Structure formats: structure tokens, C-alpha cells
């Protein structure tokens, strides 16, 4: 409305200005001296891979988290945003990706909960209809959220924000759950809002839509701002390079000679999600041969957890032949019997899945080592053998700890990850499935883990790595495939793969079906 005069806009203070924002989590510097300025009425993209620190930053803006240091100015005034309700009163609204709808409640109730002094539900329904007509967001207020499609759920989130007449709207991975048609109508809504003077902070890793929608883009990597650009003047390829970083070497894995026999075979594997909001996987097919490292890239929440549970044996397959280990049907075997066949497994979550935080390293060595390391004798634990095994892990992988009697929870993330990977590697597996091997691990530990994995492959183990860290996957894998919306792309030779194309595949583009129906986005980042 009043935003036409370009000169005036120049002189006015930024709607939101962040200076030197830092936030430290145990073992991870999530935001490192972040500066960001958002002008009134602009659509500003915040671009970065999972774990780059985008979610932490927006949670600080929305008052969910507090920064350790740094300043926030709102319309030129210094502010401290202590809570989401304070943020809302200031005019900041946020569309959360995954965690702010109440499943068993109706649309109207969900919207009312986002307002500080909601009117009664009948009048609210009328207002919802009004906002809906104005922005083309139709909703049925009486429906219960768990019956809604993902697109409809997002409309609930957006309408909830619009009811507050926000001056800054934060959208966290908004299109990751939308069909192309839904995404297009969302863009129309956002442009209309921006024209009315509302600033939009648009978080995404999808390059194409940022190029079509946003006026400016800020790229984050490893907690820092690495670039600011006008995305309309960049190619998707360039943006992908900015996001992933160019400083990686891809020469670590020597191009393998002949492939050995297939040690892990997955054929036509489909499985429903185990968790409530998980993503099912559909008709997954691949093979990993002796000495080979196959990488599965993809944004979290695209079916990785379901695939990993199917591979580890925590979820049994519909048919025994879906998964074969060393040529034997293993789809109907539990974790223990799969280990007997030669499988080792490193899950995504270190504490609470891969290790029991309250137990000692020796106990945690026993947790998965009992079968292949012969640590039991007629139902009793052989403690000296167990301690020796834990000791060997600690020594071989330079795990910094207070000895094998110290709690797993007392180790730093990197050291615990080295311990867990060492625990599996020392079992001399025929097949190793490893999820996110270097997530949140410092560079030194990451290098050690990569070397260990390459050595293991050199000894003939078939290795499958599931990770979001494209850099890492390109560095150490022989072949690479992308998991998106529970479907796996074709496997490409890593040496010949094109980063831009992989980035596009991860963003849901470039698949032969051409639909953009992947789920997930920053699920993991949003939940931590």
C-alpha cells in the first residue's frame, strides 16, 4: 500500500535486523555470528542444507530459542524476543513445518490456538472464511486436522498466521509437502502479501522456487552466512554450489576395479511408516557389492527412517526375499539373526538409539556386539571379553573418554559416533548399513570415520551410507542414488555424477515422474 516509493524504502530502517547472532548447543555451534537484514515488503530466501543452522535462527527470531549473543532490531528499535507470544504481538508470524498443529483438533481450534485472544469459534469461522477468500486459501473450519491432506494442513498454518495481520511472516520449508499446483497458488498468496508490505522470510533448499519467488537470498552453511545474492540472477546450479560448498575434494575414493558379488540385495521393498508421521517407502531396489560403497542421498523425512528400520530388522518386511544378505533371504529376520548373517548397523540417532546414554561404554559395546563378538556364555555376560572389546574400540578409533566404564552420554558427539562406528566395524561385518556417519561431528572425527569406512570397503565389506551430507557422500561413495518421497532414483556412478543434478533430485526435481511431492524438509532440524 505505502511501499511504492523506492527512495523512501531505502531510508527506512530494516523491518528486522540481526547482528552477530550466535547460538551454541552442546557439541555444535548452530549459529555463528549471523547478520541478516530484512526489508519491508521483500521476499527473502534463507537457503542451506539440513543442519546449516536455518531452523535455529528462525526459532531465535520467533522467540522459541534465545541467542547466546547478538542483537535484534525491529523497525530500528533494539528488542529482546522472549517468547512466541511476544513475537506475535510485535507482528512476527511463523508457519511451522512439522510441529505446531494439533492432530486431533479441528481447523478452527488450531487457528484459535495461534491467536492470543481468539474470538469465539463461530465468529472465528467467519473470519477464517474471509481471509480464505482474500488470499485464495479455502478451509473447512469444522474438519479435524488428522483427516486433512498435507496441503490443507499447511493452509491451516498459513491462515493462522494471516489472522494476526503479520508484518513478518516466516515460512519454514513451505513447499516440501505441496504438489506443484498447490505450490503455485501459495506463491500467489505470498506475492500478494509482500505487495501489501508484509516481509516474508522464506526458508528452503529448493532452488527453482527460490529463483522464481524471492527477491534476495541469504545462503547459510555450518552456522554461518556464506553468501547473499539475488537469486533471480543465479542459476539453480550456482545456488546448489553455494549451498553445498565448493571446498570438497572428491578424490578420496579410488575408482574401484571390478565389482565383487552382491552382498546386500533389496528387491521391490515397500513398507508403511512405523512412526505416526513417517514417510512410507515404495518399491526400493538396489544392490551393494563386496568392496563397494553405495550412497543414498536425500533430504531427511523422505523415507530414510523407514528404509533404515527395514534394513536393520527393527521392522520386518512383508516377504523374506525383499532383503537378501549374502544371498540369503533376510527380510523376515530380526536384528539378531541378521547380524548373524553378517550385517552391522549404525543408526541415525546416536544417543537413544545407537547407544544407551546412562550405560557404560562396555555395556554399549555389548549392546550390538554380543552376537558377532561371542561375549556371552550360557546366558552370562563375559565381562573381561566385553571390556577388552570396548577397549579395542576406544583404542582403534581414538575415542576420547574417561575409560570404558564412563557413560556413553558423557562423550562428545564426535567421540560417541567414533565409538559406535568402531563397535560395528570391529565386528568385521560383511554388510554395513550406516546412517549419517558424520552428522554433527567435527572435521577431524569425520575424516577418521571416512578413512575407517574406506578401509572396511577395501577389505571387501559392502557398505550402504544414508546421509544428507552430499559433500561426504560424493567424497567416499562409488555409486549414489537419491531418496525422495520414499522412492529411490536410479544409481549413478559418483565419479560421473553432476552435483547440480543431485541437488535438483534431492529437491524433488528431475525425477522422471516429475511430481514434486516429497515430504519432509527440515524435519530433523526442526525437532532438535
Amino acid at each position: 500500500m505505502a511501499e511504492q516509493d523506492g527512495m523512501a524504502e531505502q531510508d527506512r530502517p530494516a523491518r528486522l535486523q540481526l547482528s552477530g547472532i550466535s547460538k551454541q548447543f552442546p557439541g555444535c555451534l548452530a549459529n555463528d555470528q549471523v547478520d541478516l537484514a530484512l526489508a519491508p515488503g521483500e521476499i527473502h530466501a534463507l537457503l542451506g542444507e539440513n543442519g546449516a543452522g536455518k531452523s535455529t535462527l528462525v526459532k531465535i527470531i520467533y522467540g522459541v530459542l534465545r541467542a547466546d549473543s547478538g542483537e535484534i532490531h525491529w523497525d530500528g528499535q533494539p528488542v529482546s524476543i522472549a517468547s512466541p507470544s511476544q513475537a506475535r504481538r510485535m507482528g512476527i508470524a511463523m508457519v511451522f513445518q512439522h510441529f505446531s498443529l494439533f492432530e486431533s483438533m479441528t481447523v478452527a481450534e488450531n487457528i484459535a490456538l495461534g491467536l492470543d485472544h481468539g474470538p469465539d469459534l463461530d465468529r472465528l469461522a467467519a473470519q477464517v472464511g474471509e481471509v480464505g477468500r482474500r488470499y485464495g486459501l479455502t478451509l473447512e473450519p469444522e474438519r479435524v486436522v488428522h483427516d486433512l491432506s498435507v496441503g490443507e494442513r499447511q493452509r491451516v498454518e498459513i491462515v493462522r498466521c494471516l489472522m494476526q495481520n503479520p508484518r513478518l511472516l516466516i515460512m519454514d520449508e513451505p513447499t516440501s509437502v505441496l504438489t506443484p499446483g498447490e505450490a503455485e497458488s501459495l506463491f500467489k498468496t505470498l506475492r500478494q502479501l509482500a505487495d501489501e508490505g508484509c516481509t516474508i522470510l522464506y526458508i528452503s533448499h529448493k532452488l527453482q522456487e527460490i529463483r522464481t519467488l524471492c527477491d534476495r537470498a541469504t545462503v547459510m552453511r555450518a552456522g554461518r552466512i556464506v553468501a547473499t545474492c539475488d537469486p533471480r540472477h543465479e542459476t539453480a546450479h550456482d545456488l546448489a554450489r553455494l549451498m553445498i560448498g565448493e571446498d570438497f575434494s572428491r578424490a578420496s575414493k579410488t575408482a574401484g576395479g571390478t565389482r565383487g558379488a552382491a552382498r546386500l540385495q533389496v528387491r521391490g521393498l515397500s513398507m508403511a511408516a512405523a512412526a505416526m508421521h513417517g514417510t512410507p517407502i515404495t518399491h526400493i531396489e538396489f544392490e551393494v557389492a563386496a568392496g563397494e560403497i553405495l550412497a543414498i542421498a536425500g533430504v531427511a523425512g523422505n523415507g530414510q527412517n523407514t528404509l533404515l528400520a527395514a534394513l536393520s530388522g527393527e521392522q520386518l518386511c512383508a516377504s523374506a526375499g525383499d532383503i537378501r544378505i549374502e544371498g540369503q533371504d533376510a527380510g523376515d529376520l530380526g536384528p539378531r539373526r541378521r547380524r548373524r548373517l553378517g550385517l552391522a548397523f549404525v543408526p541415525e540417532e546416536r544417543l537413544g538409539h545407537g547407544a544407551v546414554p546412562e550405560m557404560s561404554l562396555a555395556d554399549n559395546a555389548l549392546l550390538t556386539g554380543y552376537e558377532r563378538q561371542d561375549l556371552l556364555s550360557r546366558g552370562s555376560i563375559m565381562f573381561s571379553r566385553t571390556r577388552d572389546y570396548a577397549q579395542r574400540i576406544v583404542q582403534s578409533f581414538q575415542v576420547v573418554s574417561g575409560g570404558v566404564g564412563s557413560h556413553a552420554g558423557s562423550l562428545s558427539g564426535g567421540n560417541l559416533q567414533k565409538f559406535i562406528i568402531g563397535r560395528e566395524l570391529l565386528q568385521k561385518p560383511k554388510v554395513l548399513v550406516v546412517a549419517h556417519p558424520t552428522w554433527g561431528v567435527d572435521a577431524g572425527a569425520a575424516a577418521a570415520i571416512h578413512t575407517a569406512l574406506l578401509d572396511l570397503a577395501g577389505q571387501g565389506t559392502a557398505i550402504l551410507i544414508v546421509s544428507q551430507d552430499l559433500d561426504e557422500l560424493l567424497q567416499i561413495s562409488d555409486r549414489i542414488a537419491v531418496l525422495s518421497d520414499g522412492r529411490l532414483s536410479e544409481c549413478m556412478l559418483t565419479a560421473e555424477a553432476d552435483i547440480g543434478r543431485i541437488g535438483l533430485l534431492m529437491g524433488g526435481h528431475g525425477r522422471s515422474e516429475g511430481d514434486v511431492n516429497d515430504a519432509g524438509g527440515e524435519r530433523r532440524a526442526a525437532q532438535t
Partner: protein
Amino acid sequence: MEVLAAVLITVVGAATPLLFAAVGELVVEKSGVLNLGVEGMMVLGAVGAFAVTLTTGSATIGILAGAAAGAAMALVFALLTLTLLANQVASGLALTIFGIGASALIGRSFVGMPVDRLPQLDLPGLSGLAIVGPLLFGHDALVYLSILSIPATIWFLERSRAGLVLRSIGENHQAAHALGHPVIMVRYLALLFGGAMAGLGGAYLSLAYTPMWAENMTAGRGWIALALVVFATWRPGRLLLGAYLFGGITVAQLHVQGFGFAIPAQFLSMLPYLATIAALVAISADGTRARLNAPASLGRIFHPET
């Protein structure tokens, strides 16, 4: 016909304490807290109401004291589980053990003493009607209060803003916290309400159902109330049905022998407990149905920084 009416009136008496305790626990569980200490709060409410009624001579003050005693116990539970983040299951058990002991200690000098049964609210003309009169209009105030608590709870949970916030906290406490709702405070208030209602249930037992004090006189009714909440799949309306069904079963055991069935009394007394197990199995077996209504955060510890 007269006999049937008399039986139905005793059903009301058996159902009322269950209804009070279960309504309170339902609101507590809707906020995402599992308080297994209903039995303890109820028995302390029973002795509190009895002792104060006897000392002051006022049943009204006694009833209020019963509610206050239950709420005081709930406050201890809230302090343990909400502020000190203690395990809810263990804390609930502690509440019950303490409540039974403390009530016996308080009630020792009141054992065997008589108190006037709560007066019926006689509505001139209406309660004099044959059969229908005593059945619908011949009860004391607490009976009507317990029944009115159902529509009131439905209104609170479904129509009021505070009820909406309470449900959202029970559904997903992290999301409610992210939206700025006061998780801990709402749960404190819900627990206090639950405690007061359990206390009222106890007060009804010692002032109206069997107007006297006997050690451990709740006899597992607090636990049955907990099961009723599951049985009702967290819907207040069904709680009314459930409480009267269980009240009916409790009373049936008293009357079966009167009808000439030679079943030992103990087996009949087992009926409410066995029926509770059967109801739990029937509801739990179909997991999805119960889960849809069960508060998703039930029993989880809320620590805002994790």
C-alpha cells in the same frame, strides 16, 4: 416396581463417587498428565469431609474440606511431577500409599461415629411423584452436582478458550509451548481440579453413600475411576454412561442373592473389578480408536529446554 426404583436409587449412589473422581481425572489426563493417585486423593477427601462435618456440624463446610484435601494432595503430586520432573507413575503410587496411611491416621478417632446422611433436595410436589419422584428428584445436592459436572466439563473442554488451550497442551506440549501457552501452569490447575473432584467423590462416600468413616473405605474406587477414563475414551459423555454402568454392577452384586441365585458373595463382589478388566481389554484391543482420543502427551515429562 417399587423394588426396581429402590435399586436404581442405590445405583445412583454407587455411581456418584466414581463420576466425580473420573471427571476430575479426565480433565487431568486431557492436559497430558497421568495421576495414578486418585485413590489416595479420594480417601483423604473422604476422611477430610467426614472429620470436618463432624467437628463443625456443617456438611457444606465438610464437603468443601473434602475437596480441599483432595486438591492439597494433588498439589503435592504437581510439585513432584511438574516442578521436580519426577516420574508420574511412581508419584501417583506414592500419593495413594500416603493417602491411605494419612487418612487412617486422621480418621482413627472418627471410626464408628455416626453422621447425618446428606439431606435430599426435596422439591415440593415433584419428589412425591410415584417411582419417578424419588428416582429423579429424591437425591442430595452432590448427586446433581456430579451429573452437572458432565455438561460443564463438556462445555469447558469443547467450547471455552481455556479448555481449548488445555487440550492443546495434552495433545502436544512442545507445540503448545512454541505457541506461547503456559504448559506448567495449566497442568497445575488441571491437577488441582482433579484433586478437588476426587476429594468430592470421597466426601460423597463418607457423607452420603455410607455415612460413616472406615479405614480404606474407597476400596479401589479411585482405580476404577482411572479405568473409567480409558473406558470412556476420554469423552465426558461416555463417562456418565460408564460410571452408571459400574454403579449398576456394584449394586447388582448386592441384589442378586435377593433374587435367589446361590452365588457366593465374594464372586459377586469381584464383578466391578472383573468388569473393569474386561472394559479395559475391549477398549485397548482396538488400538486406533483409543489412540485417536487419548491425549498424545499423556504421561510424558515436560522440560521446556529439551
